[in-house]
C-alpha cells in the first residue's frame, strides 16, 4: 500500500508526461467549439455532486479556459445541488476574471444557480431559458444580465456541453430528441457506456470521458495540467494493480506446488 501511495504521489509532484492518444470523440468536441461562428452562445450544463467532482474538475477547468480564449459567450446552468459551488470554485481556481479581462460577467458569461427537478427542469430550461430563473447564482436579478436577454428559447442555444455524473437518458430525451440542440456530453467514466449508443448513432457532437477526456482536452488547448498528472498516476497505479494480481497468482501457484 505504501508503494501504491508513492506511485500516486510521484506524478503529483512531477508529472511524467506518459503520452496519451487523443480520442476522436474528445477532438470532435474541441473542433465543434472552434468552428462555431464567433459570438455563439454555449450553455455549460452541470450536474455533478461533490463526491464525483474530482473526475470532472479537469475538463471543467480546461473547458472554461478554452471558452475564455475563444470568441463565444457562455451560460452556466446547474441541475445538481452541489454544482454551482463547484463551478464557481473552478472559475476562481483558474483566475477567470484576471486571466480573461475582456470577458465581462453578465455580457459574455454568467453563472446561474441550481434548478431542481431533474428531467423536468432540463425540459423547462430548454423551453424558456429566461423564465426559469429570477436571478443568477450571485443574486443579480436576471434583468441586469444582458446575455440572458439573447437567450429566448432552445434555438438560441448553439451548443450544450453537459458535465454530468448521471446517465444519458434524460438529457438525450430532452435536449437532443425533443429540442434538437447540439449536445456534447462529458460524463464520469462510469456513465460513459450509457452515452456510447447515442454517440454511435450520431446524436452527440462529441464525448469527453471523465478525467481521461479532460486530460486530452488539456492537451488540445495546449495547457497540460492536473489532468495529465492524474492520468500519469492512474497509469502507474493500474499497472501496479496488475502486477499485484500477477504476484498474488504466483504466490498461489507456489503454495499449490508446495502443498500438492
Amino acid at each position, binding site marked *: *500500500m505504501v508503494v*501504491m*501511495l508513492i506511485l*500516486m504521489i510521484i506524478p503529483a509532484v512531477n508529472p511524467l508526461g*506518459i*503520452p*496519451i*492518444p487523443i*480520442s476522436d470523440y474528445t477532438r470532435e468536441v474541441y473542433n465543434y467549439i472552434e468552428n462555431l461562428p464567433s459570438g455563439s452562445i454555449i450553455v455549460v450544463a452541470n450536474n455533478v455532486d*461533490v*463526491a464525483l*467532482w*474530482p473526475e470532472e474538475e479537469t475538463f471543467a477547468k480546461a473547458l472554461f479556459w478554452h471558452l475564455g480564449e475563444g470568441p463565444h459567450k457562455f451560460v452556466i446552468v446547474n441541475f445538481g445541488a452541489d454544482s454551482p459551488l463547484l463551478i464557481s470554485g473552478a472559475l476562481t481556481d483558474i483566475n477567470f476574471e484576471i486571466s480573461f479581462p475582456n470577458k465581462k460577467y453578465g455580457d459574455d458569461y454568467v453563472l446561474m444557480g441550481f434548478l431542481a427537478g431533474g428531467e423536468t427542469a432540463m425540459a423547462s430550461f430548454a423551453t424558456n431559458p429566461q423564465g426559469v430563473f429570477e436571478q443568477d447564482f450571485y443574486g443579480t436579478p436576471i434583468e441586469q444580465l444582458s446575455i440572458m436577454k439573447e437567450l429566448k428559447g432552445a434555438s438560441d442555444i448553439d451548443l450544450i456541453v453537459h458535465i454530468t455524473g448521471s446517465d444519458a437518458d434524460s438529457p438525450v430525451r430532452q435536449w437532443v430528441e425533443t429540442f434538437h440542440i447540439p449536445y456534447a456530453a462529458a460524463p464520469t*467514466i462510469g456513465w460513459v*457506456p450509457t452515452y456510447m449508443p447515442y454517440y454511435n448513432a450520431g446524436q452527440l457532437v462529441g464525448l469527453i470521458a471523465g478525467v*481521461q477526456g479532460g*486530460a486530452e482536452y488539456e492537451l488540445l488547448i495546449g495547457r497540460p495540467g492536473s489532468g495529465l498528472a492524474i*492520468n*500519469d498516476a*492512474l*497509469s502507474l*497505479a*493500474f*499497472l*501496479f*494493480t*496488475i502486477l*499485484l*494480481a500477477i*504476484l*498474488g*497468482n504466483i*504466490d*498461489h501457484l507456489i503454495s499449490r506446488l508446495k502443498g500438492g
Partner: protein
Amino acid sequence: MSFFRRRELYVAITFITGLLTIFDYFISFDALNNTAAALRNWVVLIAYFAIVLGLVNTFVFHGRRVFRKGQQWVYSAWLLFVVVSITLIGIFSGTNHPIYSFLFTNVYGALGPSGYGIMAFFIASAAFRALRARSFEALILLTAVVFTLLYRAPVGGIMPFIPQIGDWIQSVPSAGGMRGIIIGMAIGAIGMGLRTLLGYERGYLPE
C-alpha cells in the same frame, strides 16, 4: 383495539397501496393517477418524520453510553455535542452559518472523496489476495479485470490490441453476463413484490 393488532389489516394496506402504485403506471385515469401522486407525496412527508426518529435513536444509543461510561463514551459525548449544536445552528441560523458551511465542505464534503479514495488501497490489496485463479471461473474474472485495467489505463491507449480487446470485453461477454443478472433481478423484484403484497414475505410485519 384488537382489530388494529391483526396482521391481515396491515397486509391489506400494503396490498392496496402497492397495487394502486402499479396500476398508476399502466393505466391513465385521472382519479387513479391523482390518488397515487398524493400518496407518493404523503410517503415523502412520512419519511421526513422518520428522519427525526433517527435523531431519537442516536440520542438513546449514545446517551446511554455516556451515561453508563460505556465503550468509547468520550467519542459518544463528542458526537452528541456535534449533533445538538449543528441541529440548533441549522434550524435557527440556517445552513449558511459559517460553522455549518465550514463543516459541510470540509468534513461532510471531504469524507466522500476520501472514502472513495481509500478504496484504491483496498483494491490493491484485493488484487493481491482475492484475484487468485483458484478455478476456471476465477481465472475468467482475473482475465477480465486485467484487460479492463489495461484498457482503462490512459497508457493502454498506445498499447497494441488493448483498445480492441477492451472494447470487446465490455460489449460482448460482459454485456451478456450483465443482462442475465438484470433479467434475474427484475424477475426477482417482481416475485418479491407479489410475496410482499400477499403477506408472505417475512422481512417486515412479523406475526
